[in-house]
């Protein structure tokens, strides 16, 4: 079963249900969104099992929490905020179109096709028809890159 919606960066252009009930959302965009890359929080608790060090470990806890927030929230968010405008401008200047099919069940899968603006409607139709039939197709006029990390 195929559903069509308006195209948007965060809104699927189509949704498809395959013959086995797998549900796919198809996104069409000219922008390759920068990925969420977490940094490494520094340091471990210095607690070594001795009673004398427990107080020191408690002292370290706020710093570890800050380090965790810095590495897992602040740095990745800052990176995305820095790279997103560049990606949007680059996408608007390019004639390349990314078509991503995303499913979350039974496990998350993101498949990527890259095409040009002229071929995009035809390629999208073929991808959608293929997924509806339970197949991953490789239409002419596009490059299928397989599963994204």
């Amino acid at each position, binding site marked *: 079963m195929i559903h069509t919606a308006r195209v948007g960066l965060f809104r699927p252009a189509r949704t498809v249900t395959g013959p086995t009930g797998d549900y796919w959302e198809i996104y069409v965009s000219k922008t390759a969104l920068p990925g969420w890359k977490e940094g490494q929080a520094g340091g471990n608790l210095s607690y070594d099992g001795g009673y004398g060090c427990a107080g020191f470990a408690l002292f370290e806890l706020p710093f570890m929490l800050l380090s965790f927030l810095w590495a897992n929230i602040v740095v990745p968010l800052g990176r995305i905020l820095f790279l997103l405008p560049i990606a949007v401008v680059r996408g608007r200047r390019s004639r390349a179109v990314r078509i991503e099919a995303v499913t979350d069940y039974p496990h998350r899968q993101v498949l990527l096709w890259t095409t*040009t603006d002229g071929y995009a409607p035809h390629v999208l139709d073929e991808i959608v028809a293929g997924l509806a039939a339970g197949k991953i197709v490789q239409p002419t006029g596009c490059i299928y890159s397989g599963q994204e990390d």
Partner: protein
Amino acid sequence: MLRADVPAALVTALGRDGADAYDVVDRLPRGPAREAAWNTYALQTYADKLVGAGRRAGFVRADTALYAKSVYALVAGWLERAHAGAGGTATLPRWSSGMHSAAQLAGMREALMALRTYVAFDLASRAAQPELEARLAEIDACIDRVDGLWIERPPAELRGGIAGTLTGGLEQVYELGRILALGP
């Protein structure tokens, strides 16, 4: 200019030894000698087109220069074999870099077009052979696929796909030219 770039004059000088490649193939009768001459023609064309398309303000990127050098190095050997009447199958050197630049893709495309023109002309001068014409149609389909994806500033995914299609097309056109050079 990048510091790793190489003066274009230096690279084109490497190709001068194989300049005969463009004439020898037409002078030899069909058979092993012409097969070797076709190898020189295809290799010389490929390297010349890469260097021509990769030239920017008198310089060529280092990876293009290195690759062209390795292709030019094969030409002399095949020329000797052509003069000695010995045939054989040439193997293209592998690219050291995984991702091709836009200029390298342009050079590959120009080489494919040039070799395609040669084999199409050669094929037209012979009695109709449907199997060989089908091979030419496959090469044309490769060129059409590349043309359909040919845009300014292609992203890495498209460049990878275009490079794969061009490499396949070059292999096919080389093989067709070899069959024609050997054929009756």
